[in-house]
């Protein structure tokens, strides 16, 4: 008899989701879906609000990556104002975004995924968490906590608040950087280097032991997208988008935020509130692509910083031909991103204009439509607004990284489920591997659906008759 396995909620994710695995009469996995189960409606209730309020409003979507929303939103507003922000403001924002990337990646890698990597996929779920990590390998736990603090503290120093800083505004930032704060950040950098180096060393030691997982954790050909600079180095805040094909060929390049809607479409599936982004010329689902750390490292020729460049060349060696395909390598890419973030923050602080007082451009409504894009820790983020002549929002659309990874996450869940669930039999450890596939993407479900409600995720096993045979809820 066919059946369905439900994992509900999926744990150690940011947001609430569930997985269903459908089995046929022979007990083989036929299909699997990753569902995001709530809707939030930010695009709708922002209608009627002044456009310059959008950054602070949209930042409330997420407590993990509010800075990405602040920046993408402010850039969309600047397109409406038709202004170029002062150099110093752009640099300060770049630093803020990198600080957030560091803390968010530290959360994903150390708090959410390292329990699987250190303690094992089959280890006791009662202790498979950050405290388990701290108990088993204190220096690794400490490094993770310290890196998160490093990023969060920079955000607080710059924006006066760890979460939802109101410092980023349309036109720039509200106040310049004080020299005392610059010195404080510089003082934190040596410890951050030591921590990320420790994590990278440890990851390289254990990576090989996960060869079976690497083989089936969303390991397939796809397109990749992310921001890069004109010199083809990685970029998080400015630059333009590049889309790379499965063999490493450039499919599209130089996509600006204004061009994004012409190139990227969003499909809807009945089982999830998160949309499925795709590259329009290839249609849905063939045009599905991946974003985030793995995609960024695949598309970039360099990191633009010496130590991260060294790691990038090692990363590129993983695949002989074309991009690195297994989503397991999101973990490695995330650590390289962190290293790059620390180096880049240090470089930005040595900019002779970093303490300049001119950090904000002002203007009114000069266009009735504007779009902005930035790299959130988990991938490309796109905000697109339309306003009336007084600057009140009449329409808004957000394309979130998790939506852009949605198809790949679903395919990855299916791939892993097919590999691990045999004859309708599964254990907690097997289901944890299916969840761990989703974790590699570090999706933010509350961002992707703009959902509210309980946080964690749930797996069901459904029969061909539609009967729920088994269900795991945590």
């Amino acid at each position: 008899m066919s059946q369905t396995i439900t994992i509900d909620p999926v744990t150690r994710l940011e947001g609430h989701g569930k997985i269903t695995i459908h089995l046929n009469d022979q007990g083989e996995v036929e299909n699997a879906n990753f569902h995001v189960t709530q809707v939030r409606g930010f695009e709708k209730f922002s209608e009627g609000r002044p456009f310059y309020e959008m950054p602070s409003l949209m930042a409330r979507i997420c407590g993990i990556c509010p800075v990405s929303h602040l920046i993408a939103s402010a850039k969309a507003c600047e397109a409406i104002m038709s202004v170029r922000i002062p150099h110093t403001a752009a640099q300060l924002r770049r630093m803020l975004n990198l600080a957030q990337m560091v803390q968010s990646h530290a959360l994903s890698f150390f708090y959410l995924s390292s329990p699987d990597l250190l303690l094992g996929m089959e280890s006791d779920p009662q202790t498979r968490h950050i405290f388990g990590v701290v108990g088993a390998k204190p220096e690794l736990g400490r490094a993770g906590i310290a890196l998160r603090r490093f990023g969060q503290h920079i955000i607080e120093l710059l924006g006066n608040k760890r979460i939802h800083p109101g410092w980023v505004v349309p036109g720039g930032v509200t106040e310049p950087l004080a020299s005392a704060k610059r010195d404080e950040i510089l003082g934190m950098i040596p410890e951050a280097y030591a921590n990320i180096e420790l994590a990278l060393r440890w990851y390289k030691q254990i990576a090989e032991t996960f060869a079976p997982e690497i083989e089936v954790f969303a390991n397939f050909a796809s397109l990749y997208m992310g921001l890069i600079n004109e010199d083809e180095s990685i970029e998080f805040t400015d630059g333009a988008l590049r889309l790379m094909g499965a063999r490493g060929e450039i499919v599209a390049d130089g996509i600006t935020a204004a061009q994004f809607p012409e190139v990227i479409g969003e499909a809807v599936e009945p089982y999830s509130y998160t949309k499925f982004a795709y590259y329009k010329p290839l249609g849905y689902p063939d045009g599905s692509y991946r974003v985030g750390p793995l995609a960024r490292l695949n598309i970039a020729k360099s990191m633009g910083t010496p130590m991260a460049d060294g790691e990038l060349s090692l990363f590129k060696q993983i695949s002989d031909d074309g991009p690195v395909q297994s989503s397991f390598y999101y973990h490695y890419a995330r650590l390289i991103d962190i290293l790059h973030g620390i180096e880049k923050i240090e470089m930005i602080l040595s900019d002779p204009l970093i303490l300049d007082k001119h950090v904000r451009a002002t203007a009114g409504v000069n266009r009735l439509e504007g779009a902005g894009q930035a790299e959130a820790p988990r991938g490309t983020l796109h905000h697109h607004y339309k306003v009336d002549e007084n600057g009140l929002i009449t329409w808004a659309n957000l394309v979130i990284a998790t939506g852009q990874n949605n198809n790949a996450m679903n395919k990855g869940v299916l791939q892993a489920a097919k590999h691990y669930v045999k004859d309708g039999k599964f254990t907690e450890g097997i289901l944890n591997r299916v969840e761990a596939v989703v974790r590699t993407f570090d999706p933010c479900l509350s961002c992707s659906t703009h959902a509210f409600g309980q946080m964690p995720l749930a797996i069901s096993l459904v029969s061909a008759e539609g009967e729920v045979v088994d269900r795991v809820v945590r």
Partner: protein
Amino acid sequence: MSTSVDVKTLLIDGQEVSARSGQTILEVAKENDIYIPTLCHLDGLSDVGACRLCVVEIKGNNKLFPACVTSVFEGMEVTTVTERLQKHRLTILEMLFAERNHICSVCVANGHCELQTLGQEQGLTHVRLPYRNPELPVDASHERFTLDHNRCIMCTRCVRVCAEIEGAHVWDVMGRGIDSMIISDLHEEWGKSSCTRCGKCVQVCPTGALFDKSKIGSDHPKYPDFLPNLNLMREAQ
């Protein structure tokens, strides 16, 4: 001929104080450093007793009296802090929060809002009344300022400062009761009204209902203290 000053002696919270005839309880309390919470009152403007936060008890009368518009009399015994008064003040604040859409976390006045400060000061932890969540417009037609009706508490400070200090009388009140709205001119868009762009209304607005477009972000303090100084300068002329 000497002019005699008519002096009244009264008790506020058991403290013997003296006042000039015609002074309000609030004025006398302020002179004697006795704190009474206020919201629609602003030094330098006339009082209208709109918010009722300054209510006090007067011995011999079961009614509650707004201190900003109640004159002192000889032998008056005023109490400014009682359980009954606290309950009334808290209820008034809850009603203000429930009436329109006060979303502090995304409001331009967050951290500089008199309503928010009073809520904290009076120990407002939650609102027991159902929120009305009305659909209210935002008037962003003015080049420099915005009026967000969602954050307006109808204190009418803007109406008074525009009429009494600036002399333009652009602002007024339309409708009755809970449907009252601030309007500019005869319900024109603010940007098309006879506004002189002086910005006094923005500075005296206690919440984020009136704000400066260029100040949006983390910090939008207001500076209503200019009013008494301005009045003083004018009297000296």
